[in-house]
Structure formats: structure tokens, C-alpha cells
């Protein structure tokens, strides 16, 4: 009962803030609404007692990506200026693209929702298990993707340094 109330509250925050994030005219407010969306998503993960994912959501998205977003907005764009509307043709096109994306994702989620329920019903997963899964080489263990992602990040860092040093 309480869980349902909390879920509906979080879902309402996510829905409202998502809409606000794309409709607001100030880009920095848009970033703030996106932050609320990400935090509420973390709340939903916590509700599913999927703590590790919730922490990752907060640390990476709220604490990391959003800080970089806000930082770059403050540094580059004129943050106080209202964003101009696009041409009507472009608006229609992007609306159609968004609807298509919604349809595709909705279709996938709708047809797989029962499977998702099965996966979720574990309770809190031990941190050591997650650690072994991330660092193991067996089946359903993810050392190779983990290393591949870190390689990608390394490449990004080197690229950033190259761009920064080019005068």
C-alpha cells in the first residue's frame, strides 16, 4: 500500500518533470528538471530494493553527468536567455520522431513486462555478488564489457586532453 503510494508519487514527479524539462524555455531549468527525473528514477530503484543501481544512478547521473551538464551550460551557452522555438516543419518532424521512439520502446516494454517482474523480485543483491559479476570471466559475468567500457573512457580522456592542448 505504502509502496504503491510512493511509486505513484515518484512516477508523477518523473512524468511532470520530464514534460517540464522539454517545455521550459530556460536551458538551465531544463537541466534541473532532468535532475529531478534522474533522482526519482533512483527512488524507484530503491523502492525495488535494487540499491546498487540506485547508487549508480545517483552517483553517475545525478552527481556526475548532471554536474558536467550544468558546468558546460554555465560555461558555454548563455544560460539566462530564453531558447527560441524551432521552425514549424522541424517541430513536426521531431514530434513524429519522438512518437516513433515512444511506440517502439512501449511495444518492447509491453511485451516483456512479465519477464521484468521475474528479474526484479530478488530483494537486495549483495555487493560482493555484484563485484564478482563485474570482475568475473564466467557465464553472466562481465569483465570484458567492463574493460571495454573503461578503454572507451580512456580514449575519451585522451581525446579531451588532445582537444584541450590544441591551441
Amino acid at each position, binding site marked *: *500500500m505504502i509502496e504503491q503510494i510512493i511509486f505513484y508519487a515518484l512516477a508523477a514527479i518523473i512524468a511532470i518533470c520530464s514534460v517540464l524539462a522539454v517545455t521550459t524555455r530556460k536551458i538551465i531549468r531544463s537541466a534541473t528538471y532532468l535532475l529531478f527525473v534522474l533522482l526519482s528514477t533512483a527512488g524507484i530503484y530503491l523502492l525495488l530494493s535494487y540499491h546498487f543501481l540506485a547508487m549508480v544512478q545517483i552517483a553517475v547521473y545525478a552527481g556526475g553527468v548532471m554536474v558536467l551538464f*550544468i558546468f558546460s551550460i554555465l560555461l558555454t551557452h548563455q544560460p539566462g536567455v530564453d531558447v527560441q522555438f524551432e521552425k514549424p516543419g522541424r517541430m513536426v518532424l521531431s514530434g513524429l520522431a519522438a512518437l516513433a521512439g515512444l511506440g517502439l520502446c512501449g511495444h518492447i516494454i509491453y511485451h516483456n513486462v512479465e519477464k521484468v517482474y521475474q528479474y526484479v523480485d530478488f530483494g537486495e543483491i549483495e*555487493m560482493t555478488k555484484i563485484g564478482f559479476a563485474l570482475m568475473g570471466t564466467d557465464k553472466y559475468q562481465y569483465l570484458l564489457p567492463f574493460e571495454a567500457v573503461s578503454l572507451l573512457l580512456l580514449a575519451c580522456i585522451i581525446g579531451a586532453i588532445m582537444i584541450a592542448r590544441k591551441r
Partner: protein
Amino acid sequence: MLLEISHPAELYHLTNWLDTILQENLPEWGALLVKFVLIGVALLSAYAVIALLLIYGERKITAFFQCRYGPNRVGKWGIIQSVADMIKILIKEIIYIDNVDKFLFYAAPFFVIVASMLTFGAIPFGRGLQAVDFDNGIFYVLAVSSISIIGVLLAGWASNNKYSMIGAMRSGAQFVSYELSAALALMTVVVLSGTMNLSTIVAQQEYVYNWNIVRGHIPAIIAFVLYLISGHAETNRGPFDLPEAESELTAGYHTEYSGLQFGFFYLAEYLNMFIIASIATTVFLGGWQPIQIGVEGFDQIMNYIPSFVWFFGKAFFLVFLSLWVRWTFPRLRIDQLLNLEWKYMLPINMVNLVVMVIVVVYGFYIK
């Protein structure tokens, strides 16, 4: 029964008694609701009281470092000086500023204080005194404390003031860099203790030779020092107070704030100092465990001192260390600040992590 006698003044007797009374007299959801409210009120009031203690202590210790007496007029030795200051800040006017983004301007202090309160809830203050005990507690603490920087950035931008803006940008750069080495220093200890659960980490450190700083000897001590430095930098204090460098930026990101909103920033700054100290205590210095050396009589005597007293004693000792550092070193320049992090602390941290892994794998730590 013997255990009951050995911990006479522990607060968990009180909490257990409250719990049984609530369970007997109320339905389950009612008991839960009352408990939520009680825990919330207890944490909030502890938050405020600790902040008052810290402000008083800081002013006194600062004064002693500068050969002064510090506040000594309000009450005996000035002990209610900070209470008076708090009342003053509470009744001050909140000044409404023109041409600011109202929503972000008023939301920013809440980001800062909520982040610091969420972290505060996860700290084990004593035997059975922990509000939130996640299996990945250290990760939780690191994740949640990183939200506060968004509040600082938004405050700096929403103030519509270039000093605030520069202060916020500096604070952002500083926080993002130093969070990295704080996390790495904590990871070093996680390697040693094999868990991220704060209560398990405390339970492991029963005797002094089990404290992580002793058990992990050299790499643990290096990690401890690195964590203290980077934590100190994260709280924007001491030699790392560029974001609010008074001589350059008036007050940095909270220049435009007044009254209670300024109080939020102020409170969060002091509590972040305490939170850094208490995480260091929990992770390195045995948390609320008393000093036990394995001798029966001595341990018994030490056990009579309640565990939260031990915790606060250790945490305030670390706060004292940070004040000592604060009043010793001059403020760093921004390039020196980033040099220190990226050229010294981060490489040392990484090497230290590898050393710790070797120590753990080959069993060189003190068992």
C-alpha cells in the same frame, strides 16, 4: 545478561524499549509511521545540535590557534554563543533579490542541505544507532554527497552575481576533482575490509589492532591521510577555501543569500566537515568501537563509556585536525589546487590502491 551490564549507558536500550511499546500499542503501520517521524526528528535535531557544537568548537579552537580567547561573554566560557547566533540567523529577514531565477535561487540551499542530511543518516553513531544501513553504504555516502555540488552550482548561477558565479565554478571544479581521490582512498579500505557495509566495517574493528588504519598499516595510513586531505578540500574549507575566498569573491556562491537560506549553506558546510570526519572515523578508526586492546579488565572499563561518546570523541578529534590544518596553511591558488589533486594525490592514490591489493592478496596485513 553479562552483555547488558557491560553496556549500561547505551542508547539502544531506549530505542528497543520504544520499539516494543510502539509494537504493543499500535497497529504495524502506525508503529512504523511513529518510528519514521521519531527517527526523522532525532536526526534533524542531532544535525542542528552538532552544528551548534561544531560552530562553538571551531570558534574556540580557532581563537586558541590565534592566541585569543574566542567567544567568552555569552554564558560561561561563551558556550551559548552559537545558540544566540542561531537565533539571530533564524529571525533575520530573507532578502528577495530582483532579476534572479526565483525557482533555482530558492531550491539551491535545499539541494545542499538535503545531500548533507542524506549522508548524515547513513552514519553509524553508536551501537544500534544507524538510521540507514545499506549493503553498499560507502557507495551510498559517496553518491549522495555528490548531489550537494549541484546545489552550489545552481546557487552560484541563480544569484545573478559574478562573484557567486566564479565561486560556484571554482567549487564545482574542486569538488569534482577531489571527490575522485576521496572515493579512491575509501576504495583502498574497502579492499582491505572486503565489504562496503558501514555496520560490518565497524563490527570488524573490535580491537585496536583490528582498526583498519592499524590492520592495513602503511597503505591504510596513506589512504587515511589522503582521505582527510581530499575530504577537507570537498568541504571547501581551510587552505582549499577558494570558492568563498573572502578577499577575492566576498563570500563565493552564497554571497546573495541571507537569513535562513544562508543558514542552510552555513549548516551544511559545518555538517559536511563533521560527516567527512565521521566517515573517516567509521572507516579507519573503528567507528563507535571503544579502545579495546584485548586485556579483560581494561576492555571492561572502556566498555562502560557508551559507544556514541567514543564515536563523537573520535570524530571531533578529526575535526580538530582539520581545524589545525586550516589555521596553518595559506590558501592555495586554483592551479596549485588542481596540481595537488591531479599530479600528486590521484597517482599516489592509485599506487596505494595497488599496494593495498598486494597486501591483501598475500596476507601482509595484521590479523
